């Protein structure tokens, strides 16, 4: 256990504003551990987050960070990765962040397949805005949006990701710390768009999906051939219990490795100098007619 390298020491990084008992604390510790164990350094790691309780993560870690906009962590993280593929980019957000406000980016992020890791703190509720229905709130749950109970079926992000042939798909429950750490480590190491849905109890607003509930309703995946998309999809559709573990892995064309801008030039964008001679020559060749 390291948790030294990524432990922040900045004045406003110490007073963590999550509710006592919130699942986010454990996710933070697991993430710091995973990064250290993988040998990453704060300066070559970047945590890009959206807005929500999960979105506060960059402030509680010693690494580059960008706390951006609700729903937009994936595009921001994508741009960052394209500007500098040497950075280890971890994109963090809540279920509202990723599956509602930013759903289009989730789908297209999977399609684009940049080598980033996406961690979704799925507490099945809107935490920061105080308990509204989220895209993953279960039918029957009473929320401030649906005081009589949610009656519309939730989104199944894991099945969705698999259906899109996402490069790496996993689900974990933060109550299983060691397993979660192993999976996050594998997600980070996987080359391509790696997606981990993390069941994270919100002790304040979600009275249904508690630590005990998750313990009872999840089952660790055993002996699965993670290259078999059909089996993975089948497993993902199961909601009683919810399977946790790695569902699916596939190596696909990685976006930034195949774009023109990185064919003859390998440096991150900020290191590229403008070649004025090349531009002058281009003008001579194309506009004198």
């Amino acid at each position, binding site marked *: 256990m390291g948790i030294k390298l990524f432990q922040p020491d900045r004045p406003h990084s110490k007073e963590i504003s999550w509710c006592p008992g919130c699942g986010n604390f454990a996710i933070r510790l697991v993430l710091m551990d995973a990064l250290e164990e993988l040998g990453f350094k704060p300066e070559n790691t970047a945590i890009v987050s959206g807005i929500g309780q999960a979105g506060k993560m960059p402030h509680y870690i010693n690494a580059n960070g960008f706390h951006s906009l609700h729903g937009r962590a994936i595009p921001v993280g994508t741009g960052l990765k*394209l500007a500098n593929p040497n950075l280890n980019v971890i994109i963090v957000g809540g279920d509202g962040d990723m599956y509602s406000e930013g759903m*289009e980016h989730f789908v297209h992020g999977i399609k684009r397949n940049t080598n980033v890791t996406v961690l979704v703190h799925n507490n099945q509720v809107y935490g920061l805005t105080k308990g509204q229905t989220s895209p993953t709130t279960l039918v029957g749950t009473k929320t401030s949006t649906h005081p009589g109970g949610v009656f519309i079926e939730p989104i199944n992000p894991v099945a969705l990701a698999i259906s899109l042939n996402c490069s790496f798909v996993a689900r974990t429950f933060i109550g299983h710390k060691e397993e979660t750490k192993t999976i996050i480590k594998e997600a980070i190491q996987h080359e391509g768009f790696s997606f981990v849905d993390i069941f994270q109890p919100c002790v304040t607003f979600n009275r249904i999906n508690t630590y005990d509930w998750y313990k009872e309703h999840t089952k660790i995946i055993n002996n699965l051939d993670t290259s078999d998309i059909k089996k993975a999809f089948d497993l993902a559709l199961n909601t009683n219990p919810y399977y946790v573990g790695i569902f699916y892995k596939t190596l696909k064309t990685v976006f930034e490795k195949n774009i023109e*801008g990185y064919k003859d030039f390998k440096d991150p964008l900020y290191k590229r100098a403008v070649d004025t001679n090349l531009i002058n020559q281009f003008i001579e060749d194309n506009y004198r007619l």
Partner: protein
Amino acid sequence: MNEINILIGGQAGQGLNAVEGILVKFLKKNNYYIYSSKEYMSRVRGGINTVTFKISSSLNCSLRRDVDIIFSISKGVLDWCAKEGRISSKTISLGEEEYLNSQNEIKLKKIPINLKNVIEELGDKRYLNTAVAGVISGLLNTDKSLITEVLQNIFSGKSEKIVEDNKKAFYKGFDISEQLSSQIKLATINQDNSVAHKLMMSGNDSISLGAIYGGCNYLSFYPMSPATEMASFFIKNAKLFGLVVEQFEDEISVINSAIGASFGGARSVVTTSGGGFDLMEEALSLSGMAEIPVVIHLAQRPGPSTGLPTRTMQSDFNLALYAGHGEFPRIILAPASIEDSFYLSSKAFNLAQKYQVPVFILTDQYLLDTYYLLDRNNLEGEKPQKYYIKADLDYKRYLLTENGISPFAIPGDSKGIVISNGNEHDEYGDTTEDEYYSRIMQEKRNQKLFSIEAEALMPKFIGQEKYEVLIYSWGSTYFVIKDALEIINDSRIAFVHYSQIYPINKKSLEYFKNARYILGIEQNITGQFGEFLKTKIYKPINRKILKYNGRAFYLEEIIEAIKIFMGETYGN
């Protein structure tokens, strides 16, 4: 000045671009000054699109309404031109007989030309465009043998036969119109040897190349006229210049990715138009708060909503000025010309980096789709300056400084870490609601505006020291007003043209103090820039000359409107 104004009209998909491509190159080879501008419909097939060429003996960069020759390559062109008001008593129309018919009675000289038969001999309809270029070239005093080189250039990589057949088609057209010379009297245009040394470039290419010259290396976009062409330029040249280009799923991701890239040290640009930019507003505000540079190429077209997708307007000044919630500094540039496009586009990236703010380049369809000859020397850019430092272990992304500018560091470039934040923050970038930071960070961001203002570009001023009437304008209307004033030649009138429209240089307000009457010229219905100026000049604007039908100002219109004002004000 002697000039010949030629309009070629046809349906979308008929190859007007091909005619334009051949003509521009051929006429330049013949040492003529050329100006070309397009207007087209938002459709891929059918409709009426037109290209206007002006041939002259010296630099000439404004759009003229009255055309000398209309060449129809489809039905309906004459009706269209009549409605557009482009036909004068002197206009002559050419084309296949059937294309010279019009639904409404139009009085003009019609000269039928039979090219179809001619082309049938060559066995390929596509040669028609080359023959049309031949007919037009034949009307002018040109050396037809120069076409070989032009065709070799256009069809480089294609077979010798294609070049030969195109040459035959060109010659056939050329020979036909030589026989017409007795029927068509055109102004004499002198050839000028210096044309050979000039460049022929479109506004779009100038904006794009200027950006690359300014160090831009990241472009994200979602297709939208007239902004897409810049992306196309980047895509075509991505490998050569090492540019990252991506078409994102929507404009929201376009700008958020650009901001992410800038956070990582890229010099990023987004290229979009009204509706697309509307979707970017929240992220514009993020750029303001997180102090991350981003350049926004906002290519204007008429709105509201989808409006007229392929036409021109200057109606998004207010949008650029007021977009985004909260308060934060920004910079808005609006190139006057193709030359200015290169300069401002390159400069935009330095400004964005230096002040860590969003910078707009406001262009419009007219500017982007216009070509004319320019001097290589006038295509000057600003070289990229380095505005970042290495972060130390105690790096503060939002360090409080006297001028509000905190040294910018790039993640991964050194041992220190960088934290950016769209929430209010302390100096390190961590979220806080502390009263001190809540206040001081607003002041810090706002403070940057004073330095930005201090180096704001002065507008161009044309006029005598003493004048009575001051005309103001901004963006792409520069040449048409300048040329109009040269023709009017009235020393009582001066002209001030803004290329940096926000913040404006305060010294420029002096120009308004010295004027008795103030006249605005803009391509929108409310005179947005004038309304903004009013809050600075504390004077009424005596007249606004406004055009808002999606078509660029014609030289004649400006002359007429100014003359009317002068007549009403001073008597005839």
